[in-house]
């Protein structure tokens, strides 16, 4: 059965190569049938990869321990949903899974554009099949996922216990969707450059795809943060680890692109810049994959060392050379049609927003790569820790937060003082008010700045919704709730965007709360002893045990008291997985009024039952969850398709104009 897998991968590689050649020939010879054949081949590649992935999944589910991958990342006692997750739990499987997403997305793109964008499509096929071809090469020759063991294993070595967590089932897939999704705008940008069709057709065609990728990239990052928070047991959710940074950098440049693209749509400016951002974002997704797989940078949760690094680096160099070369070649055609009118304008706010996003991305890149850079320059490896990232990014992030309040409200072209006063008087008042309250409560200047800005942005968003709703009420006589819903339905992009901003404001609230006001305590106690953290008193009652065939548990029973009243019992645990004999820490969390009480069983003495407990109080952390959900909701609103009747004029006439019917 598993023999099908390598066959499908062989065939897939051949088909991908064919798709590239025939598409290019189609462009050269102006043969529409060649182009169509390339598109069909791309669909066939998708079919092959589906077969290969299904074969590996099947081998995992039936526990075929002849296969090295299956034996290495699963076992017969592993629950089914983690057996499925093992498909992306190891290097080889994750590459195959990555390819599965890439080719699936390619298939959708090909089908969507059957009758559209005929001039762009052969180039799009070429770009996407080149990326797919690269992964197929790796899977065929460098890291074959169906490699057999010399002697079949009796039992698998099991999935890494740290990965046996429910976030594991959704974090990597969403991150991969985000990473791979960014290939679509890149492929269209490449097609626009190569074909010379540099109008904004490629931008409108890929707008939803970019949002789609951004949606998953955002969620992937958030899920990763929550995973770290609930699993790694150090009380925080973001450590500026190279692996986290690898996923964060494309998010930053991708977000910059989502903003700057609006300037191109509205003002025909920043054409080169947008190309640069799309190329950069794609390059960073490949670079991120390289970082997590090469072992170039040591990281807490990715020690994976493999010989794959150089291949990714070569592919990255190749992709960058080709796309930057094309960009330079087309530079004269990418003139801006407008100029900046004033420093006090929406255009300028967007430009500074872009500079900040790219600046943060650069700082993160610099910090992540500093060991390599310093070794090249000074001959010593120097690493930088989280304080570097926090120090650089906190002010930049706050500046971005400020622009988030300014950008959507300030006038295009040139803002007058009268307009500024009208738009910002109320929000600034709110901001100052919140700042005074924050100072009175905390006496912390960072908190003052952060909460002022949060209140300021919140006020601008509320004011926008209020103004729009009132206008509809006055004009059309609708009741307030109906007016609000219709307002959003009619301007999904604008108001969905505000909802996303609202989510970001909530995330900023969580970050401010947890980074400035976190309490942390480490105590070593005998059974019966107590300690306090914040308002809580905690009593350690001793250790409890539980045993299952797959895992055994050791829990510390801790009574939670408010005053003299016991309100809860928490059990932070150590788990001992039996296959790779390895303990893991399971934290216990109690959420109440936005604040988490977070307990970790650090270590214990088996004879005396003396235990070391770590306790954290994370204020406002619930906003991280709610902010993430709000952000997702906002993105769904923005992406929601227009009703069919309204859809046609949105892009069909232009598409027809630019590419002849086939």
């Amino acid at each position, binding site marked *: 059965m598993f023999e099908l897998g390598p066959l499908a991968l062989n065939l897939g590689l051949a088909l991908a190569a064919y798709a590239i050649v025939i598409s290019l020939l189609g462009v050269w010879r102006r043969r529409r049938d060649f182009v169509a054949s390339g598109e069909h081949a791309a669909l066939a590649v998708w079919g092959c990869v589906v077969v290969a992935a299904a074969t590996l999944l099947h081998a995992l589910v039936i526990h075929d321990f002849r296969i090295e991958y299956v034996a290495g990342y699963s076992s017969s006692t592993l629950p089914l949903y983690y057996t499925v997750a093992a498909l992306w739990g190891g290097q080889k499987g994750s590459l195959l899974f990555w390819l599965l997403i890439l080719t699936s997305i390619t298939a959708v793109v090909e089908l969507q554009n059957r009758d559209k964008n005929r001039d762009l499509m052969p180039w799009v096929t070429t770009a996407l099949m080149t990326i797919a071809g690269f992964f197929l090469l790796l899977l065929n020759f460098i890291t074959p996922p169906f490699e057999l063991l010399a002697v079949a294993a009796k039992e698998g070595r099991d999935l890494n216990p740290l990965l046996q967590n429910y976030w594991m089932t959704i974090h990597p897939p969403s991150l991969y969707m985000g990473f791979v999704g960014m290939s679509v705008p890149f492929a269209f940008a490449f097609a626009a450059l190569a074909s010379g069709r540099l109008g904004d057709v490629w931008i409108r065609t890929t707008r939803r795809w970019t949002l789609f990728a951004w949606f998953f990239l955002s969620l992937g990052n958030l899920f990763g943060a929550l995973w770290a928070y609930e699993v790694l047991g150090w009380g925080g959710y973001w450590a500026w680890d190279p692996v986290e940074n690898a996923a964060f950098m494309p998010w930053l440049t991708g977000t910059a692109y989502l903003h700057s693209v609006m300037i191109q749509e509205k003002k025909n400016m920043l054409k080169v810049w947008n190309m640069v951002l799309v190329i950069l974002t794609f390059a960073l997704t490949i670079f991120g994959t390289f970082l997590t797989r090469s*072992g170039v940078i040591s990281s807490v949760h990715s020690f*994976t060392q*493999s010989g794959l690094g150089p291949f990714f680096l070569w592919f990255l160099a190749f992709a960058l050379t080709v796309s930057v070369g094309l960009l330079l070649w087309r530079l004269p055609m990418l003139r801006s049609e407008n100029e900046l009118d004033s420093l006090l304008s929406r255009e300028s706010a967007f430009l500074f927003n872009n500079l900040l996003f790219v600046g943060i991305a650069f700082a993160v890149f610099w910090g992540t790569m500093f060991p390599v850079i310093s070794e090249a320059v000074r001959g010593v490896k120097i690493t*930088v820790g989280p304080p570097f990232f926090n120090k650089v990014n906190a002010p930049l992030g706050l500046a971005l937060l400020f622009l988030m309040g300014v950008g959507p409200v300030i006038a295009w072209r040139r803002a007058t003082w009268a307009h500024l006063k009208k738009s910002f008087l109320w929000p600034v008042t709110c901001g100052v008010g919140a700042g005074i309250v924050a100072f009175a409560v905390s006496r912390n200047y960072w908190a003052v700045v952060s909460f002022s800005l949060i209140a300021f942005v919140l006020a601008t968003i509320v004011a926008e919704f209020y103004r729009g709703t009132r206008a509809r009420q006055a004009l059309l006589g609708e009741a307030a709730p109906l007016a609000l819903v219709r307002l959003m339905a009619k301007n999904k992009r604008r108001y969905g965007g505000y909802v996303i901003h609202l989510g970001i404001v909530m995330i900023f609230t969580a970050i401010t709360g947890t980074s400035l006001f976190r309490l942390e305590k480490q105590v070593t106690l005998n059974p019966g002893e107590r300690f306090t953290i914040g308002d809580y008193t905690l009593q350690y009652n001793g250790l409890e045990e539980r045993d299952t065939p797959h895992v055994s548990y050791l829990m510390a029973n801790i009574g939670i008291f408010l005053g003299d009243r016991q309100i809860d019992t928490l059990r932070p645990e150590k788990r001992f997985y039996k296959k790779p004999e390895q303990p893991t*820490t399971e934290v216990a969390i109690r959420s109440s009024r936005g604040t988490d009480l977070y307990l970790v069983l650090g270590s214990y003495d088996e004879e005396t039952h003396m235990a*070391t407990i770590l306790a954290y109080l994370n204020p406002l952390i619930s906003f991280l969850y709610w902010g993430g959900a709000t952000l997702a909701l906002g993105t769904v609103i923005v992406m929601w398709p227009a009703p069919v009747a309204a859809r046609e004029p949105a892009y069909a006439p232009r598409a027809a104009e630019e590419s002849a019917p086939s």
Partner: protein
Amino acid sequence: MNRSRKFVIGACLLVASIGYLMVAGLQTSSSYYFTLAEFLPRQHELGGQGVRVAGRVTEGSLRKQTSAKGTEMRFTIGDFVGADHVPVEGTVPVAYTGVVPDMFDEGRDVIIEGKLVDGTLLAHTIMTSCPSKYEPKPGEKAAPAEQQQARS
């Protein structure tokens, strides 16, 4: 032209402040990163400085003691088979008080972050590798790595 010059000045100011933040940040939070092979010959110059050292916990060297202050561990780190492996003789003693990482054990590859005081590394952070995710290293055949994995 004049208007875009204003913007250029603004952009330059922004870029300069990002640069300033980065330089300032680097000065406060950087530490040297060494493999044991690099660390041993120059450890006398590094007294009192923040360092990160990669090595392997020597078999049989681990001593643990739990008291009201937490779990105190003493061990030595020795030869570490990294990507650019240079075999070394010699070990460095490490002292650590705090929470023991789950995957910490003798024979594991670790990165110790701390200060060197009187020839002992006083660790404030121990990072452990995760053996079940090890892939064969470049230059190494898959089979021996396989055994190595199975053993650990």
